[in-house]
């Protein structure tokens, strides 16, 4: 990332654009990420939102944005973005809108829309090469209606619709891979607790034309069950345990921007959250914990195989 103007945290913007006092929950990891993303994108940004927690940011006078906002039906935000982008292009071409007054069109949805019912509209927008940025704040459930399971919910998490047994039986949908399979110019994962990594990625995305898609894992005190002051710590654990890989897809390649060489055991991330408490009390569910750990290990084994120099020896077995 030699092209970045951000080489250390001190270089990140110190004046923030997003207003304070919004109706979001205290410690919202999604707001933390949005805050940082908005600082990099700047005021010439129009947000296109689909129903979710951040729809609450539209409630006047608690609107923290400096610019405009369009709400769409839950499945349609990227299609709404198409209309805005086209209108801006018409203004540029026919009415002489100066380039400095052009806007970044940013789709802002939660995982419910991004991983689920909005995926078809996203696929269509990428296929059309729409010049937009998608920011998904992923809190791994339908937070706005009380944290029911979504397609982003991780295996073993208890949600309002998975209250029994081990919790959610499914696996978190690989949205990064699904988006990347469309071959857009840029896809990245970020998290608010890694602000430098986030800033560099948004800086890069801002300079690219076409579909650019960002997933921000968003620790959610209300839905995940932890004290709001732990939000950053939970986010750091998500990265350091390897649960949330920080990576980007650019020029047809996936590059990991932070590889936790000594990964913290996944149990320390899970144990810090109420939604996984049933895996620890009244007794540790070693089988499920081992299963989750193995899946994380397996992921990183694949990554390490990719980045490791070629070797004449056979690949080692049993690495996950």
């Amino acid at each position, binding site marked *: 990332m030699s092209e970045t103007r951000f080489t250390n945290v001190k270089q990140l913007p110190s004046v923030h654009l997003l207003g304070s006092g919004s109706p979001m929950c205290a410690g919202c990891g999604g707001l933390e990420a949005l805050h940082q993303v908005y600082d990099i994108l700047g005021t010439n940004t129009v947000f296109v939102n689909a129903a979710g927690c951040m729809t609450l940011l539209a409630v006047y006078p608690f609107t923290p944005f400096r610019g405009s906002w369009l709400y769409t039906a839950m499945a349609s935000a990227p299609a709404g973005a198409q209309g805005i982008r086209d209108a801006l292009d018409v203004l540029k071409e026919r009415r002489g809108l100066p380039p400095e007054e052009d806007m970044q069109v940013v789709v802002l949805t939660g995982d419910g829309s991004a991983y689920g019912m909005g995926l078809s509209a996203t696929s269509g927008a990428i296929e059309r090469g729409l010049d937009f940025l998608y920011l998904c704040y992923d809190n791994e459930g339908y937070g706005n209606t009380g944290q*029911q399971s979504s397609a982003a919910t991780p295996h073993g998490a208890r949600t309002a619709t998975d209250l029994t047994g081990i919790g959610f039986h499914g696996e978190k949908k690989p949205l990064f891979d699904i988006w990347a399979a469309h071959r857009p110019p840029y896809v990245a994962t970020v998290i608010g607790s890694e602000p430098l990594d986030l800033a560099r990625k948004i800086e890069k995305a801002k300079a690219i034309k076409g579909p650019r898609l960002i997933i921000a894992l968003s620790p959610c005190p209300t839905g995940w069950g932890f004290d709001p002051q732990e939000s950053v710590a939970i986010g750091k654990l998500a990265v350091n345990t390897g649960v949330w890989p920080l990576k980007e897809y650019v020029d047809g390649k996936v590059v990991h921007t932070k590889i936790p060489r000594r990964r913290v055991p996944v149990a320390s991330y899970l144990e810090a959250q109420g939604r996984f408490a049933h895996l620890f009390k009244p007794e540790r569910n070693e089988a499920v914990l081992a299963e989750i750990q193995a899946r994380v290990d397996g992921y990183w084994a694949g990554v390490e195989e990719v980045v490791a120099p070629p070797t004449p020896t056979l690949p080692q077995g049993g690495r996950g």
Partner: protein
Amino acid sequence: MNKTKNGGYAEAQRVAADPKGVDAGAHFMDGDHAIAEGGLAAGCRFFAGYPITPSTETAERFAERAPEVGALFIQMEDEIASIAALIGAAWGGQKVMTVTCGPGFSLMVENLGLAAMTETPMVIANVQRGGPSTGMPTLTAQQDMMQAKWGPHGDNAIIALCPDSPQECFDLTVEAFNLSEFYRVPVIILTDETVGHMHEKVVIPPADQIPVVPRNNYKGPKEDFRPYQFDCQGGHPMTQAGDGYRFHITGLTHNERGYPAATAEQNKILLTHLIEKINGNADQIIRLDEDQIEGAEVVVVSYGITSRIAVKAMQDARKEGIKVGSLRLITIWPFCEKRIEEISSQVKAIVVAELNYGQMVREVERSAAGRCKVISVNSCGGAVHDPQEILDAIRRAAQ
């Protein structure tokens, strides 16, 4: 002409509910939860849904109870998928239900039409909130009354019921399943946010006191099997995947074997059947709650939460010496046009109170056909009426 097989809905075969799904006893529960309990008691063992305020609690209740009852709860990616899963599961042999509200119901309507077309039994609860669009997710309304009937494109007929209490949420959900199974038609519970979130005493009877209409599965020879019977207005059997019968389910205009037959002649036969099996049996389907209509000069027509507000207005009007009666619509669709016709020839005026800009009042006006005044007490939703508004209308009506 009664073409109903098995003697009509009143005489339809009923069996005791499966005790596994019946949480018998007195509960303090909200309407949303009572809908889930009604479904489980009626034998529903498949729920596919998607969270949306103010209906989510029904899905959560069903999800929590499903493992102990042996039912399946699936959270789908949206409401289109939810109702599509119901169609599949119904033809897989299950009694099925979902719950939603306005925006979700809007997404369901194409498949609702398919369910009506394919005569697939299912129960859909719409816990109405203020609209249009996203509207007021946490505030009450009765704005989807017409959408329930006219949402899907093309002519069709459905049944819709409207509870006014958590107890009725339970009772009418059981009833909805019974009607749905007998007439093989989607039945919609048109409740509202206030009733959905209102906690009251709900008494769930023991299983042997809950009569349920069981799925009528065809058992006859394969060569005689027809998934549809257009000369039959109720009680016609289905089959389920895996039973060995060949069937073809399509949204195209079809013949009794289920195969496409898109001709004007066939469409007349099919459409007449779909509509007449409901409208032609309206007398058997419709349930009304009447009070002091005999000798009344004014009758208040209301439904759902609004009917409970109207009670206060009617009490006050009677204190003033106005003879006022009440007609509470329990069945919304098919509409009770005959009863309105009778009442309209006996009273000075009918007052229609509802939490919308004037929807069911159009049905009342159509049925009254100018025989009496019809006064609308409408509201844009977001809150229930002030009883004074209804009282003022009753006073105007009595003049």
